[in-house]
């Protein structure tokens, strides 16, 4: 396996022709190439614009939206978008980091309607709010459930 490249500029130097990277050049906060997977961090204001840009660049299929809770470190939440290109046969991971105090970002359902269920799941299990989502309700847990089970400060057993 190729060694990991953790420096943003080095990633751009290694893949000068990568259409996803070219499209995201103006939004990139950080980029890494680890275990043959490309991960690009963007600011949360730019999430819709970044998704539009990679979609134009040929990454046409949204596979997955999920989150990781890095509690107690900040910024606490990491939202990961896994985006696949049918023609390039590659995937790219977009990442947005969110502070625990203000866990909210724009919904990308306007770019990919399939984000609907995924974002509802992240809202339900992590308590991250997606602005502009057409139907942001709990999906896995009962409607009257308190708390967000996949947060790291929510215990596996005992509580509730």
């Amino acid at each position, binding site marked *: *396996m190729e060694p*990991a490249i953790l420096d943003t500029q080095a990633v751009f130097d290694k893949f000068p022709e990568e259409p996803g990277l070219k499209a995201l050049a103006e939004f990139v906060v950080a980029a890494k190439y*680890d*275990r043959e*997977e490309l*991960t690009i961090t963007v600011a949360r204001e730019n999430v819709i614009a970044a998704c539009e840009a990679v979609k134009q660049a040929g990454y*046409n*299929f*949204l*596979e*997955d939206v*999920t989150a*990781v*809770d890095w509690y107690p470190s900040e910024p606490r939440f990491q939202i*990961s978008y*896994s985006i696949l290109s*049918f023609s390039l*046969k590659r*995937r790219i*991971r977009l990442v947005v980091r969110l502070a625990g105090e203000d866990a909210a970002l724009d919904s990308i359902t306007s770019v*990919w*309607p*399939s984000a*609907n*269920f*995924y974002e509802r799941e992240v809202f339900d*299990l992590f308590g991250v709010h997606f602005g502009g989502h057409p*139907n942001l*309700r*709990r*999906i*896995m*847990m*009962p*409607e009257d459930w308190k708390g967000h*089970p*996949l947060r790291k400060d*929510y215990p*596996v057993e005992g509580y509730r």
Partner: protein
Amino acid sequence: MSPVAAPDQINPGIEDVVADAKLHHHGNDPIADQTMVINMGPQHPSTHGVLRLVLEIDGETVVSLAPDIGYLHTGIEKTCEAKFYQQVVPLTDRIDYLSPMTNNTAYALAVEKLLDLEIPEKAQWLRVLFNELMRLNSHLVWLGTHAMDIGALTVFLYCFREREQLLRIFEAVSGQRMMTSYIRIGGVSLEPPIGLYDQIRAFLLDFPSKIDEYEGLLQNNPIWIKRLKGVGYISPKDAIALGVTGPPLRAAGIDFDVRRDMPYSSYEKFQFKVPVSNDSDVWARYVLRMQEMRESVKICLQALDGMPEGRIVADAPKIILPDREQMKTQMESLIHHFKIVTEGFAVPAGEVTSSVEAAHGMMNYYVVSDGTAKPYRVHMRNADYSNLQALETMCKGRLLADVVAVIGSIDIVLGAIDR
């Protein structure tokens, strides 16, 4: 039939559909439009588990539809975070319970990527063999239940006759009929018993004639044709926008199969066709899955013919449990065994996505490690979950009875949706 007077009194959740319906009707009250809201499931024989659908119907025509899921949510992703890496494998069996070994493979591939493990060829070929047998297993359950939903009860009995043989093969190789946990991190758990390859080969050589038999029951059956042809159409553009994968995506004319396009576990060494259709209706999905079964048989036979010799687990004593004989005779192996069982093994920090083509579509495992012996986050992306989102598009404007046919054609397992 008179419209429902006060839908909010029947069940919480219905008002949401009514509110949705209002949006679709550009502000008109659906009740005033003489539509009716009905509830299907969660205990309905044709919803393949505990899926609840809230439908708004105008006469018998579906105006809007909202799936209500979560009845089977057991928090597997949360449980994974409290287990060692190797203890997660049995949990993955229970997600898509019709193809446990495919789940095992996807999880093992992700962790192996994090560990940078080299898997021996024989283990890879065994994985291919059992992944394809799992596809047959899953498709047989799909065909049986799908046909039963439409009203052809006999097919179910025929399919389960063959499935029983497959379950016996899984029992012979792993000791379990359904929750096999056969594919582990670093390889597979056991050497296949003597005579198993012959048993599988006998089954595979016989199986194409069995597919002919199912087709004999269905292909020219006028009821089957009427209920399936032209039903549940989705355009290729909508299929991509709604995240559809697997047979429904290929039935919509998009030629993408993870096994061929992004090969894993040495699939690139096998010759097989990826069936594609342009009709994108329930019939096309039926035909496509029947062709897929025939292709799976070919892949399995290639795997049996070319099965390499060698080890079935990677050479990594600190990750893989030692042989029992070695454990009892060598001090070093005993220490490794003790360490793995009591402390697990540390996995280098990082995040990876593995992707496999399961029977229902693309299955991804997203595993995040923080450098300890327990996964920091495990997320499963199952095709069932995103394919369900396309249900409304496929059913809208069609008859209520077609909903049953369409649910059968997208082939969902609620265990994989709710996790």
